[in-house]
């Protein structure tokens, strides 16, 4: 490890060598890509509980059977799956998929084998959300701690009730447990972080991996994010933030999210995320790995938030544009060289508008001719995982020279963008931009380039 190289101005080139998405289509890039290109949607009725009391009854959940965490982790790690909240399962599954796709041998793929990359040179940056405690688990533990009115009695809880919870209860819900389980399974001993900036978390994590590799502290990183807000608290908080499209019981909500449609009424939640293997070009070449795309530019900004908390992002466009501009500058790419854009495209009207205005500031009249990739109509908005999924799809578009189908939207020309429903098709893509802005106002932009 050369200390000198950490501060040199020449930046090591960074490539993506493995994609590990998890979405309502299942685990792995093939299921995701096939679903996206076929114009399918993972949005459907929520079945794990009766959602009829909430504003929406649909989500893009991972169907039972498509994420069997016990089958994914190494045999000697199965016991630990008992302390994995859904978000942790998503990250662990995504990491396994990415490691396999990148052709890496780790402790998690082959116990006792020599790791492809020395463990101390592998970092891990995973975006996570606020994981709520499981209501069933908590309520059943509290049953013996009810006061005369049926409310919670903290005295009895302190004396006896809390012992009804498993000793490791807290560890199911710490956001850093996504990265901790992943680093333990795959023996990543390098720099590790957990970013918690809502929808921007995944992209910020990938940006942080780029920074860590550039400064010489790792050769490769497991980078991305994962989350599921399809639970009581997740739905309630998103309702309080006015983000969800209303879908009443019995309504077909499969077209409820319509990004950049003038009639857009809100978003639909998804379960998922992605882990990517980000790696220095030197490391990838050294081990003969095929690069999928190059990460050429990154920038992050805090957006102006009139309401402080970034629920109202209607003033965010200038800062979103500034992030895009920063990423273009970092990449040494001109706006005219961007061939496709993967925005957050949430279907939340104010946020769609802010994104459209920001893109117009950068791309001018050409914006209406740049195809947008809109993922929410197919996989929903997956919280901290959503922008990692976006980067994953951008990389796949570059590899396949193809754009997936778009669903649900019409009339997007009124917002100056090309986002209407259409079939998948081939496209000549050299540079693809991902831009994401999360609740709270953190915005990140990443530019990926085709490997030639």
């Amino acid at each position, binding site marked *: 490890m050369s200390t000198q190289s950490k501060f040199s101005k020449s930046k090591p080139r960074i490539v993506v060598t493995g994609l590990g998405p998890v979405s309502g289509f299942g685990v792995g890039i093939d299921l995701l890509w096939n679903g996206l290109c076929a114009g399918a949607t993972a949005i459907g009725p929520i079945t794990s509980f009766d959602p009829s009391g909430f504003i929406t009854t649909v989500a893009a959940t991972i169907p039972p059977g498509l994420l069997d965490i016990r089958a994914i982790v190494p045999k000697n790690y199965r016991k630990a799956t008992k302390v994995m909240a859904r978000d942790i399962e998503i990250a662990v599954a995504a990491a396994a998929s990415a490691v396999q796709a990148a052709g890496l041998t780790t402790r998690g793929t082959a116990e006792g084998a020599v790791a492809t990359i020395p463990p101390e040179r592998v970092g891990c940056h995973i975006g996570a959300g606020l994981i709520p405690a499981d209501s069933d688990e908590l309520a059943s533990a509290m049953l013996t701690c009810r006061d005369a009115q049926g409310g919670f009695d903290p005295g009895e809880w302190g004396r006896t009730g809390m012992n009804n919870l498993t000793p490791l209860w807290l*560890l199911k819900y710490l956001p850093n447990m996504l990265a901790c389980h992943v680093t333990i399974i795959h023996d990543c001993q390098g720099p590790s972080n957990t970013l918690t900036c809502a929808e921007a978390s995944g992209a910020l994590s990938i940006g942080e991996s780029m920074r860590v590799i550039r400064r010489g502290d790792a050769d490769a990183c497991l980078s991305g994010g994962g989350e599921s807000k399809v639970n009581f608290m997740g739905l309630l908080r998103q309702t309080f933030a006015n983000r969800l499209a209303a879908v009443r019981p019995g309504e077909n909500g499969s077209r409820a999210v319509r990004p950049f449609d003038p009639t857009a009424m809100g978003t639909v939640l998804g379960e998922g995320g992605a882990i990517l293997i980000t790696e220095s070009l030197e490391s990838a070449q050294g081990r003969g790995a095929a690069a999928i795309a190059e990460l050429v530019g990154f920038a992050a900004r805090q957006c102006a938030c009139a309401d402080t908390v970034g629920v109202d992002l209607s003033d965010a466009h200038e800062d979103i544009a500034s992030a895009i501009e920063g990423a273009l500058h970092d990449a040494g790419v001109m706006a005219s060289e961007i061939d496709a854009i993967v925005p957050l495209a949430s279907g939340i009207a104010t946020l769609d508008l802010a994104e459209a205005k920001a893109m117009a500031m950068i791309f001018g009249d050409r914006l209406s001719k740049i195809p947008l990739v809109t993922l929410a109509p197919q996989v929903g908005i997956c919280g901290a995982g959503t922008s990692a999924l976006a980067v994953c799809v951008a990389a796949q578009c570059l590899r396949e020279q193809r754009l997936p189908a778009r669903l649900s939207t019409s009339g997007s020309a009124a917002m100056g963008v090309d986002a209407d429903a259409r079939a998948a098709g081939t496209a000549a893509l050299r540079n693809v931009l991902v831009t994401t802005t999360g609740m709270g106002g953190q915005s990140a932009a990443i530019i990926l380039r085709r490997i030639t």
Partner: protein
Amino acid sequence: MNAPRDRSPSERVVVTGMGWVTPLGHDLETVWSALMRGASGMAPITRFDARTFPTSFAAEVKNFDVNPLLKSPAAHANAGINSQFALGAAAQAWKQAQLDVKSPRNGRRVGIYLGAGEGVIDTPNYLAANLKAWNAEQGKCDGVKWAELGHELMNAAREIEQEPNMPLAHIAREFGARGPAYNCLTACAASTQAIGEASSILRGGEADVMIAGGAHTMIHVLGVTGFNRLTALSTSKGDPAKASCPFDLGRGGFVMGEGAGMVILETLEHALGRGAEPLAELIGFGSSADSYRITDIEPTGRGAAAAMLQALAQAGIDPLARRSDGRPMVDYISAHGTGTKENDSIETLAVKRVFGEIAKEIPMSSVKSMLGHLIAAAGAVEFITCVMAIHRGMLPPTINYTTPDPECDLDYVANIPRAAKVETCLSNSFGFGGQNDTVCVTAFSE
């Protein structure tokens, strides 16, 4: 090696402002003098009725009102207590850095990197919703009933303020920061990691100024429950002021604290350009993962040592070398020093792994003996402690140290503060789950 002072001013990172809100006070001087008295912030918990809990005491922030420190209090009217701590600490740092009078013209060159924790859950209403929605026949909560109760009982603003990026959003609003903005949450390591990554962002030229630090409180029913179930907390039935005893043979767990620590970091070029006074220079940062177990620390101290070694390598310091007058290269280590059996002995082992025989000559203390464990905010507060030690030539003690532990055989600055020439310090933070971070800070000289 590229010694830090050979770096160009745009690649040197200095501290120009500091602030904290802690169980021992809400400004630099009050807290520092309390640390120099060996004071304890512990007392019975007042936030909720904890009398029957295995642990009924903590180090709470007392009598803190953020509003007098704010330019626009109305914008923060709904701020949770963690965001209030964050704003209070950041306002002090911003003022000390004279950014209120010599403000950067471009807010997009001012970034934020926090290691802040989630907000305090609305315990009574949240627990009531879960309990009242319980369907005994089905053995689970009824979704429809829960939704009804949730909408009825819980408050929208309060729920949104619990998101972990809210202290960040409040600080951005208050100071007009529009540059790179991050919040990380690596448990007890978070704010050390935030300060380290903020320095990396500055060196990479992505910003001129970074507000960095952390804020957190877990002194609430489910927070204490969680740590009690993990048996990580001291359950001492004696004087709470004596419950946190890092490195002592009788240590029995940590004591929860709460609060915030914030620093202003800038490139030296930017600080000098606007006539700000550098208080110290951040010369090294290391981050690692134990990759061992979610519940236990890697027993040989490999991960902790890796973080320290990486920070020292970045600082251009050989831990096995000595200065020309024979002194160790590092003058003080602010220990993670939680007071759990496992942490303190393994941290001791890791320091010996890094410094070899020299380890015994390096004073290492834990202010958690006095302030409690501020969880995500701990690292930032301890980083500030290091800068204060450099300026005052005094080392804060580890109080409540009475019985040596054969496994903890270093110099822990037992019980009373010590005068010392302090130039270079390490500050260690190790998170539950195995994320480890160390920063290296030194006296500033051109």
